[in-house]
């Protein structure tokens, strides 16, 4: 998920920075007072989740919760992810500073896409399925974006994509299951979190 400095070509880096900036500005415009607490909590959630490595089968993975964040916050995913990624890069050397734009784009854009696609389905399919689709779909899309950024910088696409896809498949299932549980919980305990976002975004 976190591409390091010195891997990507300059055009890819520039495009990533420009698109992340645009997404962040768009997100901040939509950041109303009542959404600030949710945004802060989900940002912290993403920050911590991607630091905890869960051993899963032959490898270990970390959750990213971008599907969940996209579903609840929509375009706010950009500023929310960006803050957490900046702190991860500074504190832990996860990814780099120059590639922040690309890393943020790779994680936040799938969140926005999944959110936009699945939010209209909210009352048509069970919450558990909704959460699963959001979580797993966003992880797979992120995997594709990572492969694409590496490909555009000169790595062979098919082999890289295969590695990234198989590496992310267990994570996508795990993330889907956990996102499903979380959405079920939110819709029972505080359904207005999902409702409010649906009407405003």
């Amino acid at each position, binding site marked *: *998920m976190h591409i*390091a400095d010195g891997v990507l070509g300059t055009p890819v880096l520039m495009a990533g920075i420009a698109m992340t900036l645009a997404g962040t500005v768009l997100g901040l415009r939509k950041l109303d007072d009542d959404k*600030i607490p949710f945004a802060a909590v989900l940002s912290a959630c993403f920050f911590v989740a991607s630091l905890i490595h869960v051993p899963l089968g032959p490898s*270990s993975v970390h959750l990213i919760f971008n599907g969940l964040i996209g579903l609840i916050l929509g375009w706010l995913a950009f500023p929310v992810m960006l803050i957490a990624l900046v*702190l991860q890069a500074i504190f*832990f050397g996860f990814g780099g500073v120059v590639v922040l734009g690309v890393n943020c784009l790779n994680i936040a854009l799938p969140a926005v896409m999944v959110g936009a696609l699945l939010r209209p389905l909210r009352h048509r399919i069970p919450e558990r399925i909704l959460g699963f689709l959001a979580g797993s779909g966003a992880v797979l899309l992120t995997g594709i974006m990572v492969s694409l950024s590496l490909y555009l910088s000169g790595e062979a696409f098919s082999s*890289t994509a295969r590695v990234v896809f198989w590496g992310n498949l*267990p994570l996508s299932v795990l993330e889907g299951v956990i996102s499903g549980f979380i959405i079920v919980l939110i819709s029972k305990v505080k359904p207005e979190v999902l409702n409010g976002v649906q009407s405003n975004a």
Partner: protein
Amino acid sequence: MPKFICLAILISLCLTNTAQAHRTKVFAWVDGTNLAGEVYFGGGERAKGAKVDLLVDKHLVASTDANEVGEFIFHNLEARDYQVSANAGQGHVATFAIAGSEFPEFVLSGSESTESTLRKPEIELADKNSDSCEVLYEAAMKKAIQPLRNQLDQYEANIRWHDVLGGMGYIFGLFGLWSLMRARRG
């Protein structure tokens, strides 16, 4: 069905793990005229099969693959500044610099590593050459502190919980500032 899923997750949690999506690190040291090193992920998991490049002023000099436990070695190098670059795939890249001064000034037995040099100290000491004594001493010293340097390097890559808590504090603080700014403007 949920029980089955929980069970599957629990079982997979118990299985052994190698790293995949984390901070990559490469560490290298001079061993005689050789350059040895290891590639690993933060937390100490080894990156097996990582591609390792040896560079001089950003020009590729040699290339190799790390073995099953993430170790690699370049043989018979001149004493000069090198950069080691490791690629563990999926954009996980790390670099490490080795200064020319880390190489011994001269090596007693040609291209052999310190390990083999150290094995026959009697022969080398017999000629009472103070220079060779110094070289041997230096080599032994380097060997003695090597595990310590590795440990220090890996310790630096570990995630510490006070950093995580600090990060959460920053996040809440930044969002707090944002809402304060909005409140003032409004």
